[in-house]
């Protein structure tokens, strides 16, 4: 059974990159452009009985930003899904906010494919 990862990022490039890397590594990848879409994907998946095993989320996004998204996720049925946040090295305070909201780890952009796979492996077993 392949594990499913949800990537939430407004950058199409980043989503594509995560998609390529993780699909290659044998994961199912779901994509969302912002927090709101992310929540929708989670709910949709719940209806179809599929399970999301991990969420990777950007912080700075339109419509619903990453912090709000994480807080929403942590409120409901999905609170046990580990969340990895994507930050840039200039976003230290975001990292803290992310952690406070309930993220379990972070990855600094830009990252190398093997870095991503490696971190995901640590969270999804």
């Amino acid at each position: 059974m392949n594990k499913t990862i949800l990537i939430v990022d407004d950058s199409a490039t980043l989503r594509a990159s995560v998609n390529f890397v993780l699909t290659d590594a044998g994961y199912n990848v779901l994509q969302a452009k912002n927090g709101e879409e992310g929540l929708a994907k989670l709910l949709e998946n719940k209806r179809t009985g599929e399970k999301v095993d991990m969420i990777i989320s950007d912080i700075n996004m339109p419509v619903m930003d990453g912090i709000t998204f994480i807080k929403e996720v942590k409120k409901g049925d999905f609170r046990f899904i580990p969340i990895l946040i994507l930050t840039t090295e200039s976003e230290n305070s975001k990292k803290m906010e992310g952690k406070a909201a309930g993220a379990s780890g972070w990855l600094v952009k830009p990252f190398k494919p093997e870095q991503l796979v490696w971190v995901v492996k640590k969270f999804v077993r």
Partner: protein
Amino acid sequence: MNKKNSLYTIFLEEAAELVSGLENDLLVLESNMSDRQLVDQIFRAVHTLKGSSGMVEYSLFTSLAHEFENILSRVRSGDLKITGNLITVFLNSTDVLKQLVSVDPKISERELGPEVRVAVENLKKFKGMQPEFDPVEQKTAGMAGENFSEKHIQITLKFKPDIFVSGTDPLMLLKELSQMGEFVRIKCNPGAVPVLDSFKYESLYLSWELILKTDFPVSSVENVFVFVKENNTIVVEDISSKFVEGVDLRYADKMLGEILEEEGYVTENDLKKIAETQKRVGEILVENKNVDTSVVNRLLKSQQKSRDFQVSQTIRVDAYKLDRLVNLVGELVIGIARVNQIVTENHYKNRELNDASEHLERISRYIQEQVMKTRMIPIEGTFRNFQRVVRDMAGELSKRIKLFLAGSETELDKTLIEQIDAPLKHLIRNSIDHGIGSPEERLSTGKPVEGSIWMRAYQQEGKIIIEVEDDGKGIDKKEVLKKATERGLYKGGDLSDKEIYNFLFTPGFSTAKSVTEFSGRGVGLDVVRKNIENLRGSVEVFSEKGKGTLFRIKLPLTLAIIEGMQVSIGKEVITVPLFSIIEAVRPESNIVKTIEGKGELIEFRGGFIPLIRLYEVFDFPTDVTDPLNGFILILDGHNRKIALMVDDIIGQQQVVIKSLEKNHHQIPGISGATVLGDGRISLILDVYGLEKLAFGEKEKK
């Protein structure tokens, strides 16, 4: 390769879209410079551009987007006001970004490199510059200047070996740090790297000591470690005061070797090796006949003494203050245990809280340990006094005795030291008076004329052990049994050595034929044992006739706290000192035997141990009356084992002892009470008291 190309295509599409949106937004912003939402939107676009270009490793693009983002974040935070001038610069930068998207990245450096650098420089002009006419702006700039002054920050990183498992790569942290400033010192300690056999490739063995020269405030540096600080040792410290104009002032007091080691160029081992091959100044001077060896040795000794004085600098503190501190820390530990229990019960609800409370508990334990240590003093003083006691007493009795001391440096709680003096004195007198015979006696048994007494102190299994041993006559078991029969204590039957020696500790028991000035007047070993048991300790005797006697005293490290096992009887929770528990067993078959005159015994490891049903002794109502349904604790009683039947074992925890006598009165079999993690009160069992209570009653019956 194919994927990389298609990823790049996606980037180009996205970037083109974002850049054109950016241009539009900037134009709108020019007409409404106070639209904060619009600023946020622009920032986000640039931020995304930076991230995306980073993913496809288009570094020229990233460098411009990065600077663009920097200035925009100043605008967002209110540090920088939007002006027409600024928007022009933004629009120019956007143009360059647009061009970057339209050319092949392979030739972009050659074609657009200079333009990107000009755009970056133009943006940078807004980094610290403020419009001169705006006093408010100047003030914020000033404040920023204070916060962001250059400083030296020392960072010590010791990660847990399994840090990789949590998905953290220390290299990423180091990289992040390196982007915040310049490393003045990087030292990596490879000390913990094990030999290849035991090397686990998933473990981290390295630790780092860094000094970072940075403009960022300490808090920013600390934030780098926000995800790892709880479980790892991360120390971030502003040591700017030790750096003046880039000079490390601490170097003044250090040797070159130390500095080289600190900077990570050589290891401690390298230095040691060199030190071994090198001659000391003293040796060289002696060789050159400048000075005599004896002078060098004498001065070295004086130097050492002087250093010793420096090392053990002390502060005198009122003991009362320490006692209060110990009590308060005890309360703290109880409080934290309660919080921790509540958190554990709600564990799944908030992992963060759980982590924090565990951290708190760990720290409180350290504090407790340290506070306890402040009350610890070496037994040396007590031991030293005995030299005099032995000398004087032996002289008066015309005996020749030498006292050997070992372990004087062993530290005991202050209260213990004060209260152990009398029992020890008693044992020493006992040895001198009854143990070691006169020189004639000793000669006739082929022993050296001079008798020896050894006093030793050491720590073992979390207890303090103090031994008093002599090479005297030893205890005559027959004599003891005779006396015990006379006094009606012994009624026949086989007894173990331990049980025989036990008679020595009964009140008024003495095998001494004569009463001397020093001992043998009825104030006997029973008092010694009582004193020691009051300190929650125990005393054992080992002896061999003709060879000598050894008294071994075991004491707890501290009086205020004990490790206890919580057991239940009906609704009651009783704390049994772990100190006294030998084993806990769940009886599998009926091992209880009733023997006439001896009450209930249980068969255990081939021997029989008297059984105490705790619910009977304390008269606690319970449903568990069959030992098969309960637990049996094997306890260390008075020189024998006793079995204690309880309903169930609840857990094990450190408890702070509260005296009952202060507010209530002493209850036999109970040494005090404590507050458990869940707020319940638990009585603490006094094993010796219980033994007396249970078997004393039975004898009456």
